[in-house]
């Protein structure tokens, strides 16, 4: 029997959902508001919510002081590149795990995921040294490689769960029809898995975009993405909240807009293929 949902209950649930949503969104909202305040208003007590002198001053100062576009471009290349590379590596891996599993497949999947449980700082030193030796320090190539490796377990896991939903008989049919392994993956598996691949790409772009540990530690002036851009505003001279907020807002705006337009895919991605 379907549970009867009364109007009152519905209203209550809606209000609750909005309240929870606002609590979660509040830090971002506050950052955006602060970015339009003067430094004085930003630290005023009691805090001013909407009634302050709105100004774009912070944005122009931030833009003058540092080249936003360069950071943005670095972010795009690093997030996009690492995701693309990750997908190229992960599709064949997930294919083999989903369609020709061995006794060890489950163990390998768990082992891959377990690397995510390692504190990143634990391997910072060796990776830093390797980057120096290989000349990858403060290069976009280096960051693309590192972020791809960091996110690879998640990409493989997600693709694996999506591929599992595709009936093996269809791939066997393709094999009977004369498709080579490459053609089978290109013409049959990939188009069928497009929704799953899209969610995976999206989630990983966001993860890579927001990644701050490696991007801050392995870059200096040249390859720094938007995370480095934000960080540059928390300086030893003290915090300039309004300018920091303006920088943050500019840094998260692209990904916020991307996320807004692809909510549906994103939810699917986050639920790891559990929701059809």
């Amino acid at each position, binding site marked *: 029997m379907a549970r009867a949902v009364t109007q009152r209950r519905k209203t209550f649930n809606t209000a609750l959902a909005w309240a929870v949503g606002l609590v979660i969104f509040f830090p971002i909202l506050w950052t955006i508001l602060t970015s339009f305040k003067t430094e004085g208003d930003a630290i005023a007590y009691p805090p001013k919510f909407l009634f302050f002198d709105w100004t774009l001053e912070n944005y122009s100062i931030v833009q003058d002081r540092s080249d936003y576009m360069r950071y943005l471009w670095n972010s795009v290349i690093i997030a996009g590149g690492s995701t693309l590379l990750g997908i190229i590596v992960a599709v064949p891996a997930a294919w083999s795990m989903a369609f020709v599993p061995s006794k060890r497949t489950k163990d390998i999947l768990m082992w891959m995921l377990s690397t995510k449980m390692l504190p990143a700082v634990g391997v910072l030193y060796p990776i830093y040294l390797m980057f120096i030796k290989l000349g990858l320090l403060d290069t976009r190539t280096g960051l693309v490689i590192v972020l791809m490796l960091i996110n690879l377990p998640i990409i493989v896991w997600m693709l694996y769960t999506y591929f599992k939903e595709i009936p093996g008989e*269809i791939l066997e049919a393709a094999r009977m*029809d004369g498709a080579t392994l490459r053609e089978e993956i290109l013409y049959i598996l990939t188009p069928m898995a497009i929704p799953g691949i899209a969610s995976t790409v999206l989630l990983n772009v966001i993860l890579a975009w927001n990644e701050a540990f490696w991007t801050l530690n392995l870059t200096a002036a040249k390859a720094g993405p938007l995370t480095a851009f934000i960080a540059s505003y928390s300086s030893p001279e003290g915090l300039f909240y309004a300018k920091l907020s303006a920088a943050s807002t500019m840094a998260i705006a692209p990904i916020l807009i991307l996320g807004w337009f692809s909510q549906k895919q994103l939810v699917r991605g986050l639920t790891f293929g559990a929701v059809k």
Partner: protein
Amino acid sequence: MGRIVLDKVSKRFGDVEVIPPIDLVIEDGEFAVFVGPSGCGKSTLLRLIAGLEDVTSGQIRIDGNDATNLAPAQRRLAMVFQSYALYPHMTVRKNIAFPLRMAKLDKAEIDKRVANAAAVLNLTDYLDRRPGQLSGGQRQRVAIGRAIVREPAAFLFDEPLSNLDAALRVGMRLEISELHKRLATTMVYVTHDQVEAMTMADKIVVLRAGHIEQVGSPLELYRTPRNIFVAGFIGSPRMNFIEGAEAAKHGAHTIGIRPEHIAVSSEAGPWSGVVAVSEHLGSDTFFHIHDSGLAETLTVRADGEVGFRHGDRVYLTPRDDQFHRFDAKGLRIE
């Protein structure tokens, strides 16, 4: 041309021997049906022929050439799957054209062959639809279309009708039989349904636990089953088996008599019993008879007009020339 020879072919999955070494010849143009209960290895055997599974030992020859280690596509076989296995993101046209595209045929030739196949299978009006927009029977036809455009040496069918409803199944059964007559290409067909096997096959291969129990034409299997398993599996309703004194009279450990070879009357007969259930099919009536003292239940097939009811005492007369005799091991005694 499509003569398929299995020479001591066996298959193991780890420690489990699914198919013990098997010898089998399927002649060119023959309609061979693998039939058996689920888990008997019939699908595995088909997949070995298709090349979707590797044989553990033995040799598969297609038209005299060793195909044991060839990739599926190189064996010139086409397969129709139980789930149809259509490509959901492609239109019917593209589905049917896919094997030709993989074979790198030029576009004009592909279009011609697709149009031909569509005409043969009544799919012309559906060429631009996707599989999701088709009924079960139409999907099945697309799957067959995808198989015939390649003009393969042989067709392999893996329980192709089991996802269809009863009425459609009979229709598709006829269509496949017709197709076989027209193309005269070897077909290997797997089913657990003995009716499909009996109606379609030139040659039936009865399998149990990976072993071939008997190979023969449908009537051979019906008339002279080699053992109790085949006798019980082929024919519907199932053959009655009687042990003990009655069997000893015929010099056998077990005797078998088919339901259609027993006459039923209310007056007289050598056997008697009480009707437990009567199933009226219109054309026929099946009586399930208890308390005969011969077997727990005897099944009798009678005319649709015969109208005994639950609890009626009836007399049974088996046809003397229709007894099948089996020894203690279950093997046929000639």
